């Protein structure tokens, strides 16, 4: 009771302070002094503290299971373990938005502290735009999704958290992802501020690059954790389904990746100012639209857990205001750049970085249209179409080939002009080797021969070239790491995609079967009662075609609050492959649906993403 009240008032208090910050910032702009008035700093601190307090209060309400709080009632239960009580506080709509807000004000605060070297008005404008977003979010929370709504009479027991969300990976997935999303808000505000103050230059690029890389690191990690979760929890055995909600997190990622590359051109050559600004605005807009699409419930997705049309309309309106604001500011303040024809040539670092952006925007457009097309078509013509993995594979994979090859050469090019020398013997050697290896691999499969060989060849070629890079002395170590990681990533996905094998069959206790040279035996079955669920632990013995024997213990869990069945896969990971066994309860006649999968190089996919972000982290230590 107490925490709920305190949290609510604290949130209202922070709203008042946000308005105060907004007002005093405007007052401060015309002020001729070079320093930001100290009261803005105090207000920002209070804003951070009040929202932090509010968030802590929500967590506390969850921990003590205060069912007078509607959010707690809807998403918690006394039998839930303390870990999921805490993580459950941001596993729901209201709580996750409060977390969003907390990260947002935290980032404003950090921005304020780390931007002291930059012009006063630029900093103030950034804070103003951030406050527009903050005020919008607090208003949204207070009006249509208040986490501190109270219930009377107080219920004895809560409704419980969706069991598939009761998972360690999903406990950390939203916070990490939000760090990425919200980081892009700083990029957005700071671009608009830099635009107004005519501060789009080298200094700004160096400053904002850090924020871009931080957002990119968190977004990459956030997507990866979500994907790992989907892999072992949803029982698809796949790690990416091109599901709408997954796509939505991928779109800002493409934008950020493009930004990382353009910002280098801006930093080193002072070109592409307008394009950088457009990308910055687009990144944040995509992040907010992501929140809108997930929360409004207009998407048909496995991830849409809670939704409410009122909220959707609010976020849509908010989004509209943000886009309008940025378009107006862009057209009022942007300057036409002087053409850069004279001093750049076809083979130069500039063009290779622009080409990266070109492809990124293509990938983005494919994912974007694939995600929103069904919605638009249904609204306009009342026809329903589904857009699934085959669509994305068909449109993305052919473009991957030139992309990978250009990526192999891009980092080697010099600024302004690179002389086109004779084709080096090593390159030819790498190309031939790559094609040989890939044609050899493809001969084991039933894939389209020529296309797959070229695609694999391009990936191997990139791998060899990125490895070769490590033998060439220059300082850009972080880029080398990230590019190497990317080539490993693509290769592992391709190999995983074509060499994954699986079968699915129905078995009951005691059964023994032989499928595709694999023996499978249902050896044991026991039922256990846990605190908030009942679990059926099954044991299987599998003898694969090499005679290797493995034991698996997949579970089926029956949660009590709410009553939902989940399957816990048993996965044996090693460096070459994952062996994945999952069972589902069929009707009550004792039969289980058993699905066994062998997924080569699964671990490499996750490790390469970690390596990719590690490259980003390294760039902070570059001289």
């Amino acid at each position, binding site marked *: 009771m107490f925490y709920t009240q305190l949290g609510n008032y604290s949130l209202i208090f922070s709203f008042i302070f946000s308005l105060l910050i907004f007002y005093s910032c405007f007052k401060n702009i015309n002020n001729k002094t070079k320093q930001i008035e100290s009261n803005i700093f105090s207000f920002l601190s209070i804003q951070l503290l009040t929202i932090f307090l509010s968030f802590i209060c929500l967590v506390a309400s969850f921990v003590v299971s205060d069912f007078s709080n509607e959010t707690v009632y809807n998403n918690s239960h006394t039998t839930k373990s303390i870990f999921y009580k805490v993580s459950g506080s941001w596993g729901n709509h209201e709580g996750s938005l409060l977390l969003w807000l907390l990260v947002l004000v935290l980032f404003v605060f950090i921005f304020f502290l780390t931007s002291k070297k930059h012009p006063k008005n630029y900093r103030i404008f950034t804070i103003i735009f951030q406050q527009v977003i903050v005020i919008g979010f607090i208003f949204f929370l207070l009006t249509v999704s208040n986490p501190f709504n109270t219930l009377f009479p107080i219920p004895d027991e809560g409704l419980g958290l969706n069991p598939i969300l009761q998972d360690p990976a999903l406990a950390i997935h939203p916070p990490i992802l939000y760090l990425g999303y919200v980081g892009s808000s700083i990029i957005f505000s700071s671009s608009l501020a830099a635009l107004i103050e005519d501060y789009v230059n080298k200094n700004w690029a160096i400053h904002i690059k850090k924020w871009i890389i931080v957002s990119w690191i968190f977004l990459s990690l956030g997507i990866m954790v979500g994907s790992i979760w989907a892999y072992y929890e949803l029982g698809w055995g796949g790690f990416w389904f091109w599901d709408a909600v997954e796509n939505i997190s991928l779109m800002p990622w493409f934008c950020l990746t493009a930004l990382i590359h353009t910002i280098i051109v801006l930093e080193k050559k002072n070109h592409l100012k307008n394009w950088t600004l457009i990308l910055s605005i687009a990144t944040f807009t995509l992040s907010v639209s992501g929140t809108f699409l997930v929360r409004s419930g207009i998407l048909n997705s496995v991830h849409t857990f809670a939704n409410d049309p009122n909220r959707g309309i609010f976020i849509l309106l908010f989004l509209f205001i943000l886009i309008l604001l940025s378009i107006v500011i862009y057209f009022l303040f942007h300057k036409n750049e002087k053409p*850069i024809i004279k001093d750049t040539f076809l083979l130069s670092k*500039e063009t290779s970085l622009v080409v990266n952006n070109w492809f990124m925007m293509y990938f983005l457009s494919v994912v974007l249209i694939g995600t929103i097309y069904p919605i638009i078509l249904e609204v306009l013509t009342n026809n329903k*179409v589904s857009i*699934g993995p085959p669509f994305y594979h068909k449109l993305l994979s052919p473009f991957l080939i030139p992309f990978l090859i250009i990526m192999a050469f891009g980092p080697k090019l010099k600024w302004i002009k690179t002389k086109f020398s004779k084709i080096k013997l090593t390159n030819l050697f790498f190309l031939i080797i790559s094609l040989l290896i890939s044609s050899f691999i493809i001969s084991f499969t039933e894939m389209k021969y020529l296309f797959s060989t070229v695609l694999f060849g391009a990936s191997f070629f990139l791998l060899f070239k990125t490895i070769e890079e490590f033998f060439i002395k220059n300082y850009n170590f972080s880029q080398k790491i990230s590019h190497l990681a990317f080539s490993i990533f693509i290769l592992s996905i391709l190999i995983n995609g074509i060499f994954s094998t699986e079968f699915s069959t129905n078995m009951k206790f005691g059964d023994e079967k032989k499928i595709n040279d694999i023996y499978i035996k249902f050896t044991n079955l026991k039922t256990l009662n846990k605190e908030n669920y009942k679990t059926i632990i099954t044991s299987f013995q599998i003898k694969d075609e090499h005679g290797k024997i493995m034991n698996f213990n997949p579970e089926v869990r029956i949660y009590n609050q709410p009553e939902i069945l989940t399957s816990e896969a048993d996965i044996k990971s090693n460096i070459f492959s994952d062996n994945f066994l999952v069972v*589902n309860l069929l009707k009550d006649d004792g039969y289980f649906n058993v699905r066994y999968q062998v997924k080569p190089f699964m671990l490499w996919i996750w490790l390469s993403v970690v390596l990719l972000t590690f490259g980003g982290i390294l760039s902070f230590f570059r001289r």
Partner: protein
Amino acid sequence: MKKKFIFLIIFFIAIFNYSFAIENNTKLENKISKNLRCLVCQGQSIYDSNSDFALSVKLIIKNKLKEGKSEKEIYEFFKSKYGEWILFDPEINKKTIFLWIFPIILFVFGGYLIFRKFFIK
């Protein structure tokens, strides 16, 4: 050079490990069921679902394949029965043409912009 060879060797070993024999019909069955949407589920494919609907669709696919129907005929069958919504792989027709060509148009347009910015004097 040494490192490169070590990498090569690792890949070869890895690849040899995964040369499986493939049973044809089950593989096709899986492929088809992956390309069909489970209409009663939230965004799952027929393959991934164990709902009654998905189970009966799987059975239909199996029987149709036994009858010697081709993959395309099976998709057509489900499309005529449940509408395009069931197909995860949208066909190219009047309704979806924009979906397929929009990214390509954008790519060509982007290429033109880059070309104009850098190379037209």
